[in-house]
């Protein structure tokens, strides 16, 4: 049985991230240090690295991506915090969110007061085929991969189950991509810092420049519906339904609540956290949603003593557009079968009922898998402190939620943060 409350309170006192993107000249350590320094800049008071008692690193597979396993002690040593306990947490694309939760559990236990949490992934050294192969190891390689499945394929299969069950049109998925690119265009750290309208406009301009026939797209939907502009990857998931292959790092500093004000005047409190697991895709109770996400969400809400309607905004794991639609239903923001309608009607945009992925999400911000969960936390940090710049939500949000999924849903972790006056 899980406890409904932490044994003692846990606070987030600093958060940082590197720029996400494709950086051929950088390795995991460079990306991690960039995020670590950004985290230091987020602290309001003097910070001494000597005070850090443990280091939890979320990383999916530096072994496959960089031929470097056992990364946590290397990064700890790189920033001079050895000999503290340093360990790597691997739960596929949920590694970052899970590392944060594990650090919180360690603090709640009373064993540590100050824990550094990192997340990093350096993916772009490999070819697309090799990246696909590396990511596939997060699935059941004995019984799912021989069927020809890829990660876009798993989510595409869930999309067909969802479309058949709820009569959702493919166009609904495009609205997720359009919204997340609109948000990413306002985030300087996003890999795709461009709206889809910008992309189609520049493609038309380039065609004109080169004297080629100018495509006739007038709207984003026309552009996304053109298979020449937006080819299928795993039907019904197209190129613009997929998050990119990315490099990036993100860092959070967690401390016991009683010490939070030593680090900053404005800590955030980790008021709820939940995590759940599941089998390979065929073994699930449902193919049109992610059961582990629903359970993790419920656990986090129960711990926080809140309901979905109390959440002001959320970062939802949109590795593929269908994942965001299932996610907003799994988290209880919308009833089952209503997520696609919410996406189409703008209820999840920055000025909508429940803003989702104001950072641009994994779709536009980028998806360096081990860092993604902590990249989400960085957006919550910024929004709750009024530091999100042009994409800042109005109305002084006080509760933000991060939903981080591993694999095709074998893992889900949900963390809820609160700003207190």
């Amino acid at each position, binding site marked *: 049985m899980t406890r409904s409350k932490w044994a003692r309170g846990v606070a987030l006192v600093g958060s940082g991230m590197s720029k996400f993107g494709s950086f051929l000249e950088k390795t995991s350590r460079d990306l991690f240090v960039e995020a670590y320094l950004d985290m230091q800049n987020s602290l309001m008071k003097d910070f001494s690295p000597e005070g850090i008692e443990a280091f939890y690193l979320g990383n999916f597979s530096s072994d496959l991506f960089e031929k470097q396993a056992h990364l946590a002690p290397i990064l700890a040593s790189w920033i001079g915090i050895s000999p503290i306990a340093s360990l790597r947490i691997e739960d596929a694309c949920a590694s970052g969110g899970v590392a944060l939760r594990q650090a919180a559990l360690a603090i709640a236990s009373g064993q540590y007061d100050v824990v550094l949490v990192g997340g990093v992934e350096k993916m772009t050294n490999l070819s697309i085929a090799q990246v696909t192969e590396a990511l596939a190891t997060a699935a059941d390689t004995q019984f799912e991969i021989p069927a020809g499945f*890829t990660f876009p394929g798993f989510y595409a299969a869930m999309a067909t189950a969802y479309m058949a069950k709820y009569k959702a049109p493919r166009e609904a998925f495009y609205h997720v991509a359009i919204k997340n690119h609109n948000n990413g265009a306002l985030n300087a750290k996003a890999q795709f810092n461009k709206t889809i309208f910008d992309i189609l406009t520049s493609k038309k301009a380039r065609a004109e420049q080169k004297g080629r026939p100018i495509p006739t797209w007038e709207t984003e939907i026309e552009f996304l519906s053109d298979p020449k502009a937006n080819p299928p990857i795993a*039907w019904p998931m197209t190129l613009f339904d997929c998050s990119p292959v990315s490099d990036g790092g993100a860092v959070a500093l967690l401390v016991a609540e009683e010490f939070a004000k030593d680090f900053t005047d404005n800590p955030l409190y980790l008021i709820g956290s939940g995590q759940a697991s599941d089998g390979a895709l065929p073994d699930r109770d449902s193919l049109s949603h992610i059961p582990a996400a629903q359970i993790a969400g419920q656990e986090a809400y129960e711990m926080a003593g809140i309901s979905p309607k109390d959440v002001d905004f959320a970062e939802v794991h949109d590795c593929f557009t269908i994942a965001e639609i299932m996610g907003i239903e799994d988290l209880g923001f919308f009833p089952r079968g209503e997520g696609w309608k919410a996406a189409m009607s703008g209820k999840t945009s920055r000025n909508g009922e429940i803003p989702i992925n104001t950072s641009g999400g994994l779709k536009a911000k980028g998806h360096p898998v081990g860092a993604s969960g902590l990249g989400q936390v960085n957006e919550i940090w910024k929004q709750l402190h009024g530091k999100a710049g042009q994409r800042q939500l109005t109305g002084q949000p006080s509760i933000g939620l991060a939903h981080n999924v591993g694999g095709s849903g074998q893992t889900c972790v949900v963390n809820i943060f609160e700003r207190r006056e």
Partner: protein
Amino acid sequence: MDYEMVSTEFNNALKNKQLIGGQCQDCGHNCIPQRQVCPKCHSHNMEVITYSGLGKLVAYTVIYVPPVDMANAGYNSKNPYCSGIVELVEGPRISAQILDVDLTNPENIEIGSQLMMTIIMRGEGENKSSYLAFSPKK
């Protein structure tokens, strides 16, 4: 044919054109592949059973960007393939390649359509082996 309760026997059975799984002798739960502990009631009293190979399609995708093994088998964006999840008449679900469906119009592939197992060979030389696939029931 007698199979042992180890996960690799699944592929040995495919070579014999058989689809095997596990059945809990205490609660009756069927699973695929076979496993030593019942995932429903935790009983150790599991036996290997052979499935009929009949089922229906519950989810699918047509893949245009294949993983290395499928690319080596000749698939690419011009020659895509369908992978799906099949719910067997005995209850459990399994992933497999789906053959003989309309790959040029993926929206016409029907969830709920009746399928039958078939065994295909992929790979060359030492890597050649048997894989599970399904095609529409005739």
